[in-house]
């Protein structure tokens, strides 16, 4: 890679690092894992920087890598859990998280199973369509719908978050609300 391209990558990484870590945090619920995943994603982007630039939307490219890295991580973790039946780490409050009332969403997110958490982040934070979410997570659209539905129910009933979450009158797609929130 030329020195100019190196500089271009450095500038891109410095600029997009916080947003990508936040995405990874939303997916993992753990800042350490999030930074690991994000660093790995940027390394992959660097290794293919020519293609990334050619693709025209480096941020979208990187976002996809972050999501894929997270999928790989969960695949491995699942094997370990099945083998030994060790419960996952308890959700220790992150010191990096401010005590903002809205931050109550984060612990609630962490309580969700990985796929539900990923659906919430992709579908409702990144505003991805059901089809795109399904493609990104390697599952069917039906799974996205059901996982979204369960996740919203869990979030709504899991803590004092009701005020932040959609109600019947919210304009979410009917098929997501159906069977979940109604």
């Amino acid at each position, binding site marked *: 890679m030329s020195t100019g391209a190196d500089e271009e990558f450095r500038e891109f990484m410095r600029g997009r690092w916080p947003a990508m870590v936040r995405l990874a945090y939303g997916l993992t619920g753990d800042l350490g894992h999030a*930074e690991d995943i994000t*660093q790995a994603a940027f390394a992959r982007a660097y290794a293919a920087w020519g293609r990334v630039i050619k693709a025209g939307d480096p941020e979208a490219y990187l976002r996809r890598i972050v999501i894929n890295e997270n999928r790989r991580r969960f*695949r*491995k973790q699942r094997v370990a859990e099945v083998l030994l039946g060790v419960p996952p780490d308890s959700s220790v409050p992150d010191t990096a998280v401010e005590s903002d009332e809205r931050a109550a969403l984060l612990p609630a997110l962490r309580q969700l199973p990985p796929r539900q958490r990923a659906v919430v982040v992709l579908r409702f934070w990144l505003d991805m369509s059901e089809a795109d979410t399904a493609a990104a997570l390697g599952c069917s659209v039906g799974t996205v719908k059901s996982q979204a539905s369960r996740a919203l129910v869990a979030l709504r009933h899991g803590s004092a978050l009701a005020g932040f979450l959609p109600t019947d009158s919210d304009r979410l797609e009917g098929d997501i609300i159906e069977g979940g929130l109604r």
Partner: protein
Amino acid sequence: MSDLREDLDAALRTVEPGQAPVDAAIRSGRRIRARRRGTAIATAIGVVVTIAVGYPAVSHRAAAPAPTQPTDRRPVLITDTPPPAGAPAGVIAVGQVGITTWQVSADKSDGSGQAGRPQCFDVALDPGGSTPLSGSVLDNGGSTDCDLRYPGQGDPVTLEGTGGNALYVMAGGVAANVQYVVVHLAGGQVVTMIPHAAYGRRFVAYAAPASDRVLSATLRTDGGQLLATRPFIQPDGVPVFGLWATPGRAQPPTATVVLDSGRADGGSWSVTAYEGPWGTCVVTAASGPGGSSTACRATVRGTSLAVLGFDESVGSMPSEVAGFAPLAATHIAVTLTNGTSFQVPVMAVGNERLWSFSLAAGQGVRRLTARDSAGHSLGSTTLP
């Protein structure tokens, strides 16, 4: 109404990441790119080789610290067994290296069971330490490689490695007629791998200390045939299992030749060819963060013009192109994509004839022609 997206956005903005580890990401990216060279090499061989004796085998490793020297010379206990009953789908082997437990799984999602598709493996390690083995958690200390190609015709086993400076893990596919594979380590231990089926294919895996070199490996087929190999040991201690042959068969001589070298990025780089019982391996190494990679061709004697490897430029490091030439060739005529032409000499490495040259960033190769001392063409190829 409360907007979930806005609330999520606000909540996630309270997460304050540390400083972007730009240099670390670039170093890792360079290692990834160095590893990808191996894949590019495999493709190039498939396209370019016109006459090949034996079969191609490619392995690659990113730069890693030198293997640690053992402070205790007592052999580390190594075990390797098929997965226990009830293990999750895809697990192909489990075992121990001292107090470290490991497990290797074949990954279904990346083409298992489909010829020509890459195969990923998940490696789970538990370093042990003070934690009792029986109750320890297998964490994500391993990594996934997705570069294995399934054994082809006459190719009994293909193994790819991954690991660090203390331990490495090899995993791969075995042909349908292989009963078992045995690895002999310098420390005196013998690891026997029994193939295990997953997703319609048969696999083997083992783990060993990086400091305990592999001396040789043998395998036995259903028909009672015994095949053996002596691997090439890469700079980080991970072996490349290349040329499998019946005992007593003539092997290539051992020879080492530096094909090309230079300085860039404040460090040095070199391209070195190693011929031996494994076939021929070419190692591209840089003293800086550009890493190193190994590309091997498992042949007794190559007789054709063949491109062994391409290497993208890293920083101010040049791209490297290396390959084989017919025995009578004295030089390779190179035509670049910008129309420039030049010649590079062919060098003898044991039984083989090899060549290598570097390219500045942005340059590409259009055509290679092997010529003898009289200037006659002995073969040429146009690169995609």
